C-alpha cells in the first residue's frame, strides 16, 4: 500500500539484534575489522559479542538503537554528534579531545579508544550497508527500519534460563522432584 511504503521510507534503519539466534562465533567482529582496519583484530571491532559460557548464551552488542544518545549528551566538546536524518552518531575526530567520556557513557559498550592510533572508534553502520549484518550466518544481526516489537528483549534469553533453574531449585527444596 502507498501509505505503508511511505512510512517505511521515513523510518531510519538500525542494527537490530535477535539474541536467541546468536551462536557467539564472532564472524561479525572479524568482518568489521577486516573492513575498517584492513586486518583481523577483534579488539578494535565496532561491535562486541559477550559470551556467557556458564549459561550457554551469547549476546551481540551493537551501536543502537538508542532513543536518546548518551554518547552525544556526555561529550564535553560537541565532538560526538547525531545525524538528524539517520539518527546515527559520529565523532568529529578534529574536535575530539580523547577524554573517553563517550566510551563510559555508551550503554552497549561499543565505543572504544584505539590506544595505538589514539582515536575514538565507533560504528558507522558502514555508511548504510553494515558488514556485520551481511556476514552473520544465523540472522542474529539484521539491518533495516527498526520495529520495536520485533526486538527481542535484551535479557530475555538469560532470564528464561534463570527462571527455569530457580523453579527447579525451589521444587527440589520443597521436596517435590528429586
Amino acid at each position, binding site marked *: 500500500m502507498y501509505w505503508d511504503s511511505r512510512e517505511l521510507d521515513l523510518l531510519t534503519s538500525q542494527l537490530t539484534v535477535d539474541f*536467541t539466534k546468536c*551462536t*557467539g*562465533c*564472532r*564472524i561479525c567482529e*572479524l*568482518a568489521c*575489522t*577486516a573492513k575498517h*582496519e*584492513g*586486518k*583481523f*583484530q*577483534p*579488539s*578494535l571491532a565496532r561491535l562486541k559479542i*559477550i*559470551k556467557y*559460557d*556458564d*549459561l*550457554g*548464551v*551469547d549476546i551481540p552488542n551493537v551501536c543502537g538503537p538508542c532513543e536518546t544518545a548518551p554518547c552525544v549528551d556526555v561529550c564535553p566538546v560537541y565532538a560526538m554528534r547525531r545525524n538528524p536524518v539517520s539518527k546515527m552518531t559520529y565523532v568529529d575526530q578534529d574536535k575530539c579531545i580523547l577524554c573517553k567520556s563517550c566510551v563510559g557513557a555508551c550503554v552497549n559498550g561499543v565505543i572504544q579508544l584505539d590506544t595505538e592510533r589514539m582515536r575514538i572508534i565507533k560504528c558507522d553502520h558502514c555508511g548504510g550497508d553494515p558488514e556485520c549484518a551481511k*556476514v552473520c*550466518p*544465523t540472522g542474529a544481526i539484521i539491518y533495516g527500519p527498526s520495529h520495536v516489537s520485533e526486538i527481542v528483549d535484551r535479557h530475555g*534469553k538469560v532470564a528464561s*534460563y534463570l527462571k*527455569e*533453574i530457580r523453579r*527447579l*531449585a525451589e521444587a*527440589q527444596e520443597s521436596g517435590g*522432584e*528429586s
Partner: protein
Amino acid sequence: MKYGGYTGRILRARLDEGDFKTEKLPEDWIRDYIGGDGFAARLLYEEVPGRIDALSPDNKLLIATGPITGTLWPMSGRTVFVSKAALTGIWGESHVGGFLGPELKYAGYDMLVVEGASEKPVYVSIEDDDVQLVDASDLWGMKTNEVSAAITKRHNDPDVQVAAIGPSGEKKVRFSAVMVNSARAAGRTGMGAVLGSKNVKAIAIRGHGAVEVYDHEGFTKLAKDAHKRVGENPQAQEMGKWGTWILTAVKQEIGELPTYNHRTGVFSGWEKLAGDYIRPRYTISDRACFGCSLGCKKVNYVREGPFAGTLEEGPEYEGLMAFGSLLGIDDYPTALKANQICNRYGMDIISAGATIGFAMEAFENGIIDEKDTDGLRLDWGDSETTIRLLEMIAEREGFGDLLAEGSAKAAQRIGKGAEKYAIHVKGMEVSGQDGRTHRSIGLGHATGARGADHLRSLVVVDQLGYEDVASERWGKDKLPEIVDPYTEKYKATAVFETENTYCIRDTLIVCWYSVSWPPIFWIHDFAKMLPLATGVKEFGSVDNLMKIAERQVNLKRLFNAREGISRKDDTLPDRFTKEPMPEGPGKGQVVNLEPMLDDYYRLRGWDLETGLPTQKTIKRFGLEWTSAHS
C-alpha cells in the same frame, strides 16, 4: 614477518627458571610445515628426547596455531595441544575449538611452549607482551569451569581466554583433558595430565593485536565466499541443526554404532540417542566456535528425572556413544551428566566411557568382582553406577584409581585375560567406529600416530557411498571396491590421501567438520587460499601440499619409532579381527588388516617388515636431521 598470517614469534614459558622467552619463528619451518601440527611436530621431535617419562619435567606441552588462525576463514578458530602423550607414551596431539588459538595470535604468538615444571601451582598469564607465571595455589582443586570464572574475574576482562585443567589433570588421570571455554575439550591422549605434572593449572590469554594476511582483499573475498559455501551446503546445515548427533541414526543404519564395548554395532535403544529425539526435548541454544558459520555446539538442559537441573554443552556423537550405546545406556540425560563431569573434572569422554566399558565387560566375565570394585555391581545399562564410577575415576578414588590409568594399563594390572576386553590401539581407546563395518577406519585406527584415532584419517566417502566424490578423488578405475565398506581393496589409497589432506587441515588449522561428509572444502581449496593468506606461492600447488603432509606423517612416525613403535604395534583388538560382527548389515564381517597395512606402507614409502620410513623416504622429505636427535 615476511609472510602473511604469522606473528613470527614463539613464546616459551620456562617453569624451571620461572621466566619467559620469546623466539623468532624459524622461517624455513613455514615452507616445510605450514603451521599448527607441523610446527609442533618439528619442535617436539627436536626438543623432547626419546623414551622420557611423559609426566616428567623433560616433557613439553605445545599450543600451536596456523597461518589462518584468527582470520575470517570458516572454522579457523581451532588450536592444537601437542606433547608426548600421558596416556600412551607416544606422539600426542589434541585439537580443540573455542577461542583460545585466535587469542594467542592476537597476543602476538604463533606458538606457546610450556617446559620444565613448577614447584608450586601456577597459571600462565599472557596479555600481549605482559607475560607472567601467577601463583595458582588458590585455584588448585577447582573444577575447570570454576577456574575459568575465577581467572576471568581476576583479570576483570570477559575476553580473557582460559585453558584449564580440573582435578583429574591434577591427579594425572591418564586421559585427562585441557578444557577451553569450560566445555571445549582438548581431550584425547591426556594433555591435562601433562599440565598437571608441571603444576600448571591454567593458561590465560588475552591479545589486542591483529592477524594480517598477505593479500587482505583477495583473502577476505575468498573467505566470505567460503562462508557462503558453508551456508549453502546441505550437510553443513544439517550439522548446524543437529550437531554430530545426526550420526547416531546413520551409524545404527549401517550397523556401526559401537555397543556393549564394541561387541556389536547395533543398539536397540538408539532412538533415544538420536538428534531428532534429543533436540526438541533438551536443547536450549546453538553455539559456535570462533569464526564458524556452521555452529554445531548445542547447550542442553535436563528438566526432570535423576539428573534434573543439568545444564551443559554437548556431548557430541562420540560422547553419546561412549556413555550411551557403548555401555548399553539408552538415556540422553546420563550422557549429558557424564559429559558435564568430564568437562568439569577435565577428562576425555571417549577414553573415560571406553574404560568403563572395559570394566563392565571384565565384570560380566567374572575377571573382576565386587571385591575389586569397592562393592559396585557393574552392569550394562546401569546409569547410576556409571556416573558414580566416572566420579571415582575423576578423583582417583578406590577402584577408580586403577581405571584412571586407562583401559590398556588397567587390563595389564588386572591380568587374568582382562586384556581381551581392553579395546585400544597403542594404549588409546578406540573411538566410535568399527573396522568390521567400515574397513578403512580399521586401517586408520591401526596406523594413527596417536593410537585408535578417528580424526587423522577417517574416510567418510567410502562409508556412506559417495561414488562421485570417490571417483573424482581416486579415479573411476577403483570403483566399486573403494566405496565398498566390506572389502580391504584400495582402502590404503583412500586412507593415504585422506590422511594427507587432514594433515594440511591440521596445519592451518581448520575444523574437521569443514572437510567431512562429503567435504565443503578439500585440499585444492586450501591451495587456493594459502598463497593469499601467507604469500608463499608454493602453497598453491596441491602436489607440494601433499608433500608437506607426507613429511608431517613421516615425522610423527619417526617420533613414534623412537619410542619403539613399529609394524608389530599397528594392530587392532581381536574384537575387530577375530570376532565376526554378530548382527546388523555387516553381520559376519571381520577386518583383514595385514593386506591393508602392506598397501599403506608401500604408499608411504615405509619398510614392509618394520613399518618404518626407509632411508630413501627420510631423504625424500628432508628429514635427515632427525637422526641427530635419537
